[in-house]
């Protein structure tokens, strides 16, 4: 306590410049939650405490300010316990106040003492929302980087787990952390990643997805996500051990795993916790769903309008019979239905859960039945569109699911122009495009299997 008092008396004064108290009052002039409190007075000067009350711990403040301000100063300061006091100038004090610190300064001093009484507002640790599993750890990251760091460290209790931090955003000054596991990660990848993070120029970062967009060059080329976004500590720790780097942004529960290859998006965290044969079966199911989602509507267009002879005669006749009375070309009815099903999906996602089920029911059953009866589309197409929508939800990664939703239109366009060959051509173009993509130096279209085996 005597050290604190000694620090008080040592606070420097510069009569030529505006005092720290005045500078801070000017800087936070229009901030209603900026508070200053007189905490002590001597003959020569007054001592003020400056802080933003919305960011500070009320409990610590209570200890600090609960006593009579006319009382003995040492008695008041005995109630503060926290990190060491640091003396700072106006700029650092201003930043410290923004971070939830309180600054004690003399009325006329040019520097102040910073007390850490910040309290972060955060959710408690809950189950993952976007990556549900039936077996495996049930905790998920929240918006606090410190909590998330603790969750990762609880998974890997080793000194080899390294953490590098930086701040991004000229205005938001957001903490960004890069986790790596020494010995497993490629040092070249890590240094390049750090360099890229240092070069990011933006006013503020709110989410890891936004940071990813800033990190990736040639954004116009990147239709596919180049990083897996996860809220699961177990997935993060497994990938760290596999030699990947993890980027976490303070204020968001989603971690970025880099580098990422195409097949990573098809693995569920649960895959490692269940029987391997079941895992292979589920993987096959997912890839099958991916192909059905991509090709089924396009195949319908190709086989009923361009390459009618390719299909079995019975199916072609059935398709023709179901289209009897439909006034539009096949591609028009297909595009119409695909757009309608995307409307329903989007409406279901954005609405509250209690209403979204109604929308799905109305959209799926009522609209589907009505649209067939109105002879706008064939009933075969309704089956195809329903199957396409279901298979889209099998995609593990949300971002990849969104890409799949776009790609099926691309395939339908190919089928409209050149039938089955158009689909194959579009698929080939898609593979060519994927083969050109790289995720933080790792080719997108290769498996990291061999690298893992070597390690």
């Amino acid at each position, binding site marked *: 306590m005597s050290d604190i008092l000694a620090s008080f008396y040592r606070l420097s004064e510069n009569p030529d410049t505006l005092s720290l108290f005045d500078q801070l009052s000017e800087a936070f002039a229009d901030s209603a939650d900026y508070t200053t409190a007189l905490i002590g007075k001597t003959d020569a000067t007054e001592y003020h405490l400056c802080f933003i009350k919305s960011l500070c711990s009320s409990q610590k403040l209570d200890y600090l300010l609960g006593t009579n301000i006319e009382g003995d100063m040492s008695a008041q300061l005995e109630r503060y316990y926290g990190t060491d006091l640091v003396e700072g100038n106006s700029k650092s004090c201003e930043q410290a106040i923004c971070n939830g610190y309180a600054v004690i300064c003399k009325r006329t001093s040019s520097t102040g003492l910073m007390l850490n009484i910040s309290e972060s507002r955060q959710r408690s640790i809950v189950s993952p929302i976007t990556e549900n599993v039936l077996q495996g750890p049930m905790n998920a990251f929240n918006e606090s980087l410190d909590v998330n760091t603790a969750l990762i460290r609880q998974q890997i209790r080793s000194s080899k787990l390294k953490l590098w931090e930086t701040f991004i955003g000229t205005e938001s000054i957001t903490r960004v952390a890069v986790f790596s596991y020494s010995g497993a990660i490629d040092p070249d990848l890590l240094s390049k990643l750090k360099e890229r993070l240092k070069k990011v120029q933006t006013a503020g970062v709110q989410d890891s997805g936004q940071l990813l967009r800033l990190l990736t060059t040639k954004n116009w080329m990147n239709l596919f996500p180049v990083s897996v976004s996860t809220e699961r500590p177990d997935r993060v720790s497994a990938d760290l051990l596999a030699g990947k780097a993890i980027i976490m942004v303070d204020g968001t529960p989603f971690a970025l795993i880099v580098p990422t290859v195409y097949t990573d998006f098809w693995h569920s965290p649960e895959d490692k916790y269940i029987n391997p044969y079941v895992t292979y079966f589920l993987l096959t199911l997912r890839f099958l769903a991916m192909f059905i989602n991509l090709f089924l509507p396009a195949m319908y267009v190709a086989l009923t309008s361009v390459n009618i002879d*390719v299909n079995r005669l019975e199916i072609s006749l059935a398709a023709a019979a179901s289209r009897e009375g439909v006034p539009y070309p096949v591609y028009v009815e297909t595009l119409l239905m695909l757009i309608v099903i995307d409307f329903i999906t989007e409406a279901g996602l954005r609405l509250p859960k209690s209403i979204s089920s109604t929308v799905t029911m109305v959209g799926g059953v009522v609209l589907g039945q009505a649209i067939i009866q109105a002879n706008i589309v064939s009933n075969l197409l309704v089956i195809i569109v329903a199957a396409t929508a279901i298979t889209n939800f099998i995609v593990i990664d949300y971002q990849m699911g969104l890409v799949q939703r776009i790609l099926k239109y691309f395939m339908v366009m190919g089928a409209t122009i*050149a039938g089955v060959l158009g689909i*194959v*051509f579009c698929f080939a173009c898609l593979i060519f495009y994927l*083969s*050109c993509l790289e995720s933080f130096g790792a080719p997108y279209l290769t498996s990291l299997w061999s690298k893992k085996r070597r390690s």
Partner: protein
Amino acid sequence: MKNPSAFTGYEMLAIQMLFSGAAAGFIYPSFLIRSTEGAYWIPIAVWTAGALLSSWLYSRMLARLEGRKLVSAIRSSVGLVWTSVLFLPVILFLIGALIVMLRAYSEIITMTMLPTTPISFLNGMLLSSAALALAGIMPIIRAARVFFLMASLFTLALLIIGFSDVNWTLGTPWFRTNGDFLLDNRFYAGSFLWMGFAITSLIGPYTMQSARGAWRSYALALICALPMIAGYVYLPVLTFGRDLSQRLTFPFVTKMDTIYHYWIIFDNLTAIFVSVTMLYVLLIMALKLHALGDTVKTLMPKAKNGFIYLGLFIVVYAAATFLPSWRELEHVIILTVGIRLYIMFIFPLLGMAALIVAQRRGGKGRES
């Protein structure tokens, strides 16, 4: 990729298998069936031996590159003018091969699946290959790995299904030959199928070890591709007989047309075959364009990559579009036999000689 590495063993295998798939399915069978009255496997075996010899000569040449690319190594050995003279036939061969492959595939599409679609529109598929070629060798290799997995499965399935309705007696004579194919220009016209190693030799740096590895992979790919090539030739013969097969433009495609099984979902297997072949063709055209673009770039270092590939695209597209008919295409293939034989057997010897001369000069220079 700024520094493309030579192919790994698996990548070489995948690319060479894709090359066989792209070249063996539609033009080659009719040439081979018409070239002999004896057993068909004998000309195939002769060409296999020829391909192995040619690739061995190439591997000996590549072993002397010491981590450099073929064109740049020869350029630094004999200078720009002699390199241009040496590589002019190679460039012509590659352009010719691209024109033939593109037009032949467009023709097959017109004849089987899209009869009313103009050839000029179908030839536009070259655009995707040109874009991939421009992207570099690594994207080509990655795409090749995916295509190899998918296309080889479909091809294998089609070949197995192709065994339905075959009559083994129609394949006779099984062992007899009088060597008549040696005097038939269509036998030599089929040389394009056996030149996969010549094309990959133009791409990527090689060392003594990687050249040996590449040759081994090529030999393995050749052995793996032989059943496929034999299937493309023999399955139509075992179904239609020799005389009818000789009159067919695309014997294997016609064979696919005849297959009907209740348990097969699709009625028209030709569509499946043509679709799978598209994967082979697009990738191999990209590979050839890349080899061509790389060679031209080394000979004209100041030219911009984008312009080189744009120029090549325009030349190949225009030539493939303005070829009047399928028969003209066959004539082109037969007329360019000489240039292909030069590329297969003479070019590696000349290249090796150039590299040896340069090495000796370098050795003498160091001694003096």
